[in-house]
Structure formats: structure tokens, C-alpha cells
């Protein structure tokens, strides 16, 4: 059975993409980033997320392939996306389907209090 962890910006499936469909697979993971375009993505930001995904999956080597462990990777990745947003590497897409600011409202921050 295909396992998955799907949150708004990070979809992880135990499947591969073939002919625009997800085909369940036991030894592959497919990551999909922000399908609903809440953020404006740049190539660099995407590469950083993929690299972080690689790191997390490598760190999870040897553990059971269950929903729980996938969710753990997924939620760590969501935190990473949030960091990118706070640093300004990605930004909220003002033309997205619904502007929810789901990772915090834009705000002006003094440099000292940052982080």
C-alpha cells in the first residue's frame, strides 16, 4: 500500500511518478513541494529543500518505513520551509488561490530580535 505524508507544502509518497500518475513503489520516495503555490519558489530555494530532504532520508536509514517516520521527515521539512520563508529566500505568492499566510504574517523585524 502506498504510504504518504501530505501537508500543505510537503507531500511525500512511497511511489514514483510515471505517466503523470503515482505508482506505488517500496524502494523509492517522491517528494512534491507546495503544489498549491502558496510560495514563490526560486531554483536555489528548491535545491535547498531537496538537499534537506536527502539529508533527512539518509538520517532515517534503517528505520521502519511507516506513516509515522514519513510524517517525521515531512514535518522536519515543513520547519525547514518555514526557516526559508523567515530568511526571505521564498515569499508568499500574492496570486495564490487563497492567501492564508499559513506560516505567519509578513512583518518587519529589527535585526537584533531576528531568530
Amino acid at each position, binding site marked *: 500500500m502506498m504510504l504518504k505524508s*501530505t501537508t500543505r507544502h510537503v507531500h511525500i509518497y512511497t511511489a514514483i*511518478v510515471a505517466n503523470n500518475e503515482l505508482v506505488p513503489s517500496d524502494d523509492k520516495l517522491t517528494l512534491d513541494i507546495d503544489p498549491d503555490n502558496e510560495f514563490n519558489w526560486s531554483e536555489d530555494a528548491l535545491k535547498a529543500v531537496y538537499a534537506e530532504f536527502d539529508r533527512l*532520508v539518509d538520517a532515517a536509514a534503517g528505520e521502519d518505513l511507516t*506513516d509515522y517516520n514519513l510524517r517525521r521527515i515531512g514535518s522536519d521539512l515543513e520547519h525547514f520551509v518555514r526557516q526559508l520563508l523567515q530568511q526571505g529566500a521564498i515569499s508568499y505568492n500574492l496570486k495564490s488561490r487563497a492567501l492564508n499566510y499559513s506560516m*505567519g504574517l509578513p512583518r518587519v*523585524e529589527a535585526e537584533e530580535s531576528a531568530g
Partner: protein
Amino acid sequence: MVLNSPTANNKVSLIPGEKIANPSAPPTVTHGLSENVILTTVDDLYNWCRLSSLFPLLYGTACCFIEFAALIGSRFDFDRFGLLPRASPRQADLLITAGTVTMKMAPALVRLYEQMPDPKYVIAMGACTITGGMFSSDSPSAVRGVDKLIPVDVYIPGCPPRPEAIIDAIIKLRKKVATESMQDRAYTLQTHRFYERSHDLKVVPPILTGRYLQTGAHSAPPKVLMESMGMPISEAIAELAPEDKEI
């Protein structure tokens, strides 16, 4: 205004030492459709048709759905807004998330949302689906708001919101639908950014089989309950008694 500046890095109007956290910016990609000329009257007619026949999906996961069910009934009568409850996501274009959503339910909710045909709308009903509500402080499994899972168009506060509040939300949603333009349709389409890799996790048989009540761990009632019901207490449970007293 700063927040709407064309680039997120435009710090012209910021004093030194300040920066914008969580910036927002218009998308840099343009879609062909947005350059076409579409008559506003066509837009209006099209929107009017859509907003008068929003078909909500019958989706309820907790207590909020009781109020939603009251709305379907004759006293509040939501058919007058052209709403017809649909039991299949393929026929629905409005998802009212009535009730708490847990992490276990999350993939199912996202899948239901993805199965709905475009254009589709989501109303988050109740405190649970806005912030996690009363589960937000200590629950290990409740999702802290469905906007962490899917885009939400209208939020209805309340625990649970009255049917009138849902009617109010639907009227707000109709206003939103009425101001939409076909030119912006391309921006609401999904974009997939797939990345595939192999992994070294250990493949195990499914753990969520729906049979955990049959595993034996849940077959005996708690000791206090067994005593008060006059049931014979097995030795293994009686041995646990000293621990119970400490508590």
C-alpha cells in the same frame, strides 16, 4: 506599501537594521491566459452560475458536523442558496471541513481536496480547523488548522459555529466567487515540483490495519472497573495493584 513591493528584497523603505520576515510578493511567472481579453460580462455570468450552485461535499469528522447537519435540515434550509450536499468529491466544489482533523486523517483530507474538480473552495469550520481549537495546546495528533494542509477561503470561528454562521460564511464565499475573473484561473492551477530518490528505510508490513482492538491489549477492562463489576481479577492484573496505590 512595503509588503506589496515587487521584489521581496526591496528594502528601500526600511530603516537600517530592519528586515521583513515572511515576505510576500506577486508571482514572477505569467500565464498566457492572463494576457487574453475576456469580457467582464462573460465573467459575471459565469461567476453568477457558479456561486448559485455551490455543491458542498458531505464531510464531517467531529461535533461541528452536527451543526452542519442542522443547516441541511428544513429549519435553516440551505438549499435556498443552491447548495446541494454531494457524497462524492468528483461532484463537489465546496469543502466545509466540519470537525477536528488529525494527522491520520490528513492524507485522506488532502486526497479528497485533490479529487474535487476546479474551481474549488474550502471553508474551515470551527476552532479546530482554524488553530486546533481546544486540542491546540496538548494534543499529539490534532492538526493545528487545516490551512496547514489545504488552502482555505473562509474561516468560521466558533465551537461549534451556529448554522447562521455557516450561512454567513457561504455569503462571504459567494462574494469572493463573484469578484473572480477567468484571467486568474491559470494562477490557481497546481504546480508539481517532483523530486524522486531511493531510500534505505526498512519495509515493514502495514501497521495501520484497523485491527488494534483485536490485538489483545484492549480485551480486559481496567482493574477498578473489573472490581466494581464483580469480575474475577486475573493474577497478572492483581500484581499491578501496588503500583495503582502509589498513584
